[in-house]
């Protein structure tokens, strides 16, 4: 089932709940260390074919993976908007939430000309599908150190064209 969320700012901006099982990630993570842009860990990732099929179904476009990586954020981590990059074309960004448990306040924010138009809360198993473009940027909000012990946000981020 596709839970469609109306969002002014992109032609496609939807969240699909329970779209992927919560699988443990065995990736070799590297910490990003330029703190005025972001604080997080990242790793290369394989993308399940059914996620590509899901993105194609939702958007009505024939899509293939052009980039993919897994991000892991623990309390104190974040990715700022100016760490994101602008896309001159209109790729699709799919984010599969592989977190072990929901983390309150840990969201992905999509912005158009700086204004947030679409918020993706941390919901394990959910997949968000958003059309990017020249005016759309994205940030991953700060994960509070007041989160419960062991809090961890894991996101498979895939760019499709």
């Amino acid at each position, binding site marked *: 089932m596709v839970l469609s969320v109306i969002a002014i700012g992109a032609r496609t901006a939807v969240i699909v709940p329970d779209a992927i099982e919560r699988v443990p990630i065995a990736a070799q993570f590297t910490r990003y*260390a*330029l*703190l*005025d842009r972001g604080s997080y860990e990242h790793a290369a990732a394989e993308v399940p074919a059914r996620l590509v099929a899901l993105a194609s179904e939702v958007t009505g476009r024939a899509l293939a993976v052009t980039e993919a990586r897994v991000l892991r954020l623990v309390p*104190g981590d*974040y990715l*700022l*908007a100016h760490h994101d990059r602008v896309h001159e074309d209109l790729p699709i960004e799919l984010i599969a939430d592989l977190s072990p448990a929901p983390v309150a*306040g840990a969201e992905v*924010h999509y912005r158009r000309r700086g204004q947030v138009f679409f918020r993706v809360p941390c919901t394990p198993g959910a997949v968000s599908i958003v059309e990017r473009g020249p005016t759309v940027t994205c*940030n991953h*909000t*700060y994960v*509070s*150190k*007041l989160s419960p012990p062991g809090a961890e946000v894991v996101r498979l981020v895939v760019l499709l064209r």
Partner: protein
Amino acid sequence: MARVFDRALSWDEAALAAAWRAAEPFPHVVIDDFVAGVDLVELLEVEPVEQYQADIYIFDATAPEPASAELRELRAEWAATLSPVLSRVTGVAVTRADMRAFAYRPGHYLLPHADHQDGLARELAFAYYLPTPEPPRGGELELFRVTPDATESARVIAPLPHRLVVFDVSDVSLHQVREVLGGLRLSLAGWFYP
């Protein structure tokens, strides 16, 4: 007018200037027991406060331009008293300042950034910490050393009441306010300009 902050007129400027020049990771000074002659918390009770939120911060603060005559007067007095002293201590000529009051509550933060922006002419940044009903846990000012490959924590400054911190504004004066984990962190902060 020079009644509130005239303690600044008796600072050991030579010692402060030496501390400024020697400070790592970028020029700054920490001045303790800088007690104002008025109840600033009471003064701020008449100033409207709103929540500000972006990807890099969340906090409660007064507007960039004070609404009350009291805060505008305080800002003018702050600039008039401190500008000459800080100009001599830092070697950076400043004459005016802006000022906002900030309240960081649990979960509030200001992530790593540098204050320099083209066209704004910010020369010196300041933060003056006020006493609060419940001292903050967290909320430290953290200064970073910038290298091509990483940013490293270089100094952590606790937001103690009546502590004034002044630091250089440049592309590399990277700093943050660590997340407040409890209590309330109150401060006056802003920049000095030429």
